């Protein structure tokens, strides 16, 4: 009984964390899949979202800024606005850069954000991080607190997904893909390319802050180690590329699939015996070595997926131009 209850709790945690990563991949999809912006600074916006929410919702603490005790929803809204403002300021300067230069700029900016958050000790408690972050619904009895938090995350994913699907089919989305595919052509058609790209960058970054805000609540502690680029920026890119960029369903699928593999492989490697004898060679400390095997497995999965599905598991599908209201026959991007 306990065992099955445990599996249930673990399944909830998989869906919760997978959902938080789905918010991040959807944000990246808006930037990369829609507008072709190579943002390599996801970790920075993720950290901003987590820190701002934590500071605004926590009771007074001597180690860092706080004591505002804001309710959850306005705090998250402020966190998203802060991230959007930062993205807007960065975007004003860098958005004209072509994709690879933008990538370099965003790596640098994300590291600057992370260093500021690490060094402004008066606000963030510096390298020692913020502890006891309030989590939504934690006052409910076990397991309802976990279920409610999972529901909150999944509903958020659904809302963002539906909104992005609508955006994808809208003239706005069509302008985005037009800019992605041929900036010059879009410009020739009279579109304000910089303005559109800036919109995608700002909105995507705000979504990344939302992902960070939830993640900070989920782990209840957030410090500089929490926004390590390898487990945020890199993993989110892998999720989007494997799932299928420029496809919102692919982005969500990639997040849940990769997180399940990432987390679930540890259970599989846990079944391995303490020592294995392979072709007469004894391998000791298997459980410790297996931790590295997991990282190798992730690489292998990515290779297989990319070899088998070169455009991701769910590749991009263009909304049919004449599909829905055939009589009106609008041209792509006419109203954008």
């Amino acid at each position, binding site marked *: 009984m*306990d*065992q099955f*209850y*445990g*599996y249930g*709790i*673990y399944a909830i*945690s998989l869906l919760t*964390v997978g959902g938080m990563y789905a918010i991040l991949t959807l944000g990246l999809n808006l930037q990369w899949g829609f507008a072709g912006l190579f943002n390599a600074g996801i970790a920075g916006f993720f950290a901003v979202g987590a820190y701002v929410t934590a500071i605004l919702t926590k009771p007074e603490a001597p*180690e860092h800024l706080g004591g505002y005790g804001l309710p959850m929803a306005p705090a998250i809204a402020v966190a998203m606005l802060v991230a959007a403002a930062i993205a807007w300021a960065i975007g004003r300067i860098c958005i004209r850069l072509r994709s690879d230069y933008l990538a370099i700029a965003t790596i640098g900016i994300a590291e600057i954000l992370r*260093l500021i958050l*690490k*060094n402004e*000790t008066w606000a963030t408690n*510096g*390298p*020692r*991080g913020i*502890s*006891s972050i309030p989590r939504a619904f934690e006052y409910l009895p*076990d397991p309802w*607190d976990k279920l409610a938090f999972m529901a909150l995350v999944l509903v958020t994913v659904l809302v963002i997904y539906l909104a992005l699907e609508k955006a994808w089919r809208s003239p706005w989305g069509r302008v985005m893909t037009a800019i992605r595919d041929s900036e010059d052509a879009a410009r020739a058609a009279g579109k304000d390319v910089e303005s559109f790209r800036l919109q995608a960058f700002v909105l995507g970054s705000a979504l990344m802050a939302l992902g960070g805000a939830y*993640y900070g609540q*989920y*782990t*209840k*502690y*957030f*410090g*500089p*180690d*929490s926004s*390590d680029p390898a*487990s945020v920026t890199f993993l989110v890119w892998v999720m989007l590329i494997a799932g299928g960029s420029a496809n919102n369903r692919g982005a969500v699928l990639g997040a849940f699939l990769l997180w399940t593999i990432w*987390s679930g492989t*540890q*259970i599989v490697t*846990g*079944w*391995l*015996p303490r020592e*294995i004898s392979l072709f007469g060679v004894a391998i000791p*400390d298997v*459980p*410790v070595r*297996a*931790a*590295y095997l*997991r*990282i190798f497995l992730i690489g292998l999965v990515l290779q297989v997926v990319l070899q088998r599905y070169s455009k991701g598991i769910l590749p991009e599908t263009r909304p049919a131009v004449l599909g829905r209201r055939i009589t009106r026959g609008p041209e792509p991007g006419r109203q954008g």
Partner: protein
Amino acid sequence: MRRILLAGAAVLATATAGTAEVKLGSLGGVTGPIAEIVALLMEGRELAARHVNEQGGLFADGQQLTLVVGDSACDPKAAVDAATKLVNVDQVVAIVGPNCSGATLAAAQSVTIPAGVVILSESATSPAITALDDKDLVFRAAPSDAYQGIALANYILGQGVKTVALTNANDDYNAGLAAEFAKAFEAAGGKIAAHQVHEPNKANYRAEVATLGGAKADALVVFAYYGSSGIAIIRNALETGAYSKFFGADGMVNDELVNQLGVDALKDAAFTTPGADDSTGAFKAYMELAKDLKQPLGPYVPNAYDATFLLALAIEKAGSADRSKIAAALREVATPPGEVILPGEWAKAKALIAEGKDINYEGATGSLDFDAAGDVPGTYTLNTVTPDGKFAAKLLK
């Protein structure tokens, strides 16, 4: 292909079959920034589990103690995920670890405290863990940084040095240590003339050293890891003639320090480390048992042994693999009164518990008498460099 599958199935079958077992979570930063240190720690944990299993296992029917490894990667996100699996999927009785303070804070608050599972970390030293509202479920077998800061501050003042310049690497361990040191040093009447935080892994630290040198203090206190910034800072301070007297803590104690800087440069240097009193019977017993380990006295390796052995004793004392009884049992077996149990004395402890007698484990690292917050008092040694280029350690009283 079929043969491989069959072989795989056979491996799984042998892994799951066998005698009844009690699962203890073994959470640690197996991958990540401190992987090398954790590999040594894991050996300490395994050694303790082996001693339990070789001397009759757990409970009357001799169940095996199995350590289930979870990788916390020194990352709060990974620690929460790994702890969720240990608590829910593997249904462990209690958890040893995790290692880093951030990972410990996240795993404890997000997973183990709500689930009512005891965690005992052998290396998380952040003072923030003391203040945690933990329902008596979070314990440590390593002293809080607060104690090491006080020990070093008292030693420096005892040497007649009243004014120091202070620098620390900007990571959670060294920043925490520096904050606790500064508090203790000033409270005891000392003066911090300058405090400069530095980022590790820079090519040189002349700018930082110039600021610190301008303060004209009597000595420089460096909290850093020797490789990533400690050696470079001392070298820059010597080059510019800013300081010739240095103090620091365990991150600096490594032979590489002497190899690169030379004995003369370090003749006035002294570093504290959380150490063991090597005159106790418990320490000698541990050294005898641990002589096959790669580094029996590696960082926190004796603590790892003590933590695992203590949790095993607590499970035996609780009489069943019931999570809710572990915290109370842990306090009973770790603190007086009771007959003293030394490292490795599992059979003796088991017999005493069966008779209903109290026991009191004395570990290699000290008495391990938990205070109200689940912390242990610190024992520190002072390390100085001898003329032949070795570190000599003596116990700080």
